[in-house]
């Protein structure tokens, strides 16, 4: 069985398991939809009061908001195995993964294809739909592909971040919440266009953890406005590549971590 078919098998088992609790799944979805919904209502209230933020209007902010929500909920759906990895190490369960004749990364992806962010995904699609309807974008095939590439690059980036979080569990299983600043915090940060932040903060999210490259830069290109930060247009189009590059770097760190892994023995 090749890797893709095996992953398909893992995913379908996981989905069937979750759908066994239909009512609970529905409640969770509605809850998340509402909770992220009020977050966007807050943004609406602020733009209602102030009119704009550094020249960006509500539909434009909604574009960035929708883009990052879709990206994050897709990334979160496939990375549940990395999210709970600290527990896997603590219990010694990771030893079993190492014994199987498949890559550890594949097995962790296969841990669960979770539907718990479905509500957020739906809400993100709604907000993105509103942006598309209201933001006067000149759609073209290249622009649509750029949106898809931005989401794909973003998923790679978040997966990379979660792999880093999981890798740090080899050293310590305490306090892994620090990574939440980059994942959850990064999502909140990316809900607004990057140019509203202070320069040192922007630089960090363009170069170190390149979240700006998978949301802000392609977003500016799709919206068809000149970038207040002055980045050239070709760079905006190439920027989503930062996602897979970041992921490759994170995979190297993971391999290093696995090589020096010592079981807890429990």
């Amino acid at each position: 069985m090749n890797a893709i078919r095996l992953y398909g098998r893992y995913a379908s088992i996981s989905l069937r398991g979750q759908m066994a609790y239909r009512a609970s799944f529905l409640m969770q979805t509605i809850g998340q939809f509402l909770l992220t919904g009020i977050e966007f209502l807050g943004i609406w209230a602020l733009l209602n009061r102030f009119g704009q933020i550094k020249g960006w209007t509500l539909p434009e902010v909604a574009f960035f908001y929708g883009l990052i929500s879709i990206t994050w909920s897709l990334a979160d759906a496939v990375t549940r195995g990395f999210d709970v990895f600290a527990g896997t190490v603590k219990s010694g369960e990771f030893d079993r993964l190492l014994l199987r004749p498949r890559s550890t990364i594949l097995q962790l992806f296969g841990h669960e294809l979770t539907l718990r962010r479905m509500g957020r995904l739906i809400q993100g699609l709604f907000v993105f739909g509103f942006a598309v309807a209201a933001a006067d974008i000149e759609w073209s095939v290249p622009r649509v592909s750029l949106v898809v590439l931005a989401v794909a690059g973003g998923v790679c980036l978040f997966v990379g971040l979660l792999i880093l979080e999981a890798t740090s569990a080899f050293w310590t299983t305490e306090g892994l919440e620090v990574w939440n600043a980059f994942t959850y915090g990064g999502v909140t940060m990316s809900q607004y266009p990057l140019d509203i932040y202070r320069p040192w903060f922007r630089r960090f999210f363009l170069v170190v953890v390149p979240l700006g490259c998978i949301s802000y830069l392609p977003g500016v290109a799709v919206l068809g406005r000149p970038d207040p930060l002055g980045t050239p247009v070709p760079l905006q189009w190439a920027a989503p590549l930062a996602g897979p590059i970041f992921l490759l770097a994170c995979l190297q760190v993971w391999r290093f971590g696995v090589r020096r892994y010592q079981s807890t023995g429990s």
Partner: protein
Amino acid sequence: MTRLHLGAYRAVLSARFRMLLQYRAAALAGLWTQIFFGLVLIMIYEAFYRSTTARPPMAFRELVSYVWLGQALLAMLSWNADAEIRAMVRSGAVAYELCRPIDLYALWYVRAIASRTAPTILRALPMCVFAAVILPLVGLGEWRLAAPPTAAAAVAFGATIVCALLLGCALTTLSNITLLWTISGEGAVILLTTCATFFSGLIIPLPLFPDWVQPILRALPFAGLVDLPFRVFTGHLPAAAAASILSRQIFWTIVLVLFGRWLLSRGMRRIVVQGG
């Protein structure tokens, strides 16, 4: 109430306190995440304030303190049902709770107070040190948590935040009781916590909502959870407003406690213990 009873509640309180104080590394990690969130929020508000010529309904200085207070007290500002009670209802272990020779409402209320205050005490102090002392030292003085303008404001904040806790725990207990109706209760808890989160000022400070929403916000019980005490702290509301805020908070606490007790007695009559 006899002495024995009070002792039982005190034991519940201190046991949960000691349990929650175990997670120090997690608290440190949480502190870093909340600092990050605080900085992002402040930068967003800063951008809004810089791109408007109209006078906003709140000074930037007050808004910044409001944001830091929210981060410092975040562990207290949740009104969701207790995860353990949820698990108890699912597993049927809630039956044991019913057998205890103490008042169930009071037991769950005290539980809520313990689980909201212990993590808050652990997190609030380092957060305040960062926001009030370290930020000015690194040259970000305009982003700092400013002390209350007067001693009276500080006292008023102290009183109103305690009442906010009592009000919040009445809401949490109501959520816990609603869970006795399992699936439909779960839906009610979602609605309740969503409303509380939005209308309390946790998402954005209430004065920033559109003017036409303000009368609705005043009529709801949720402003007493976050917004009113925070505005007293920042000086946006005068310390003299404390009397009316306190009476509002106490009024809504009594309403929620009475409603919760009534609901609990109904829930007891129709309870079906889940599981085997």
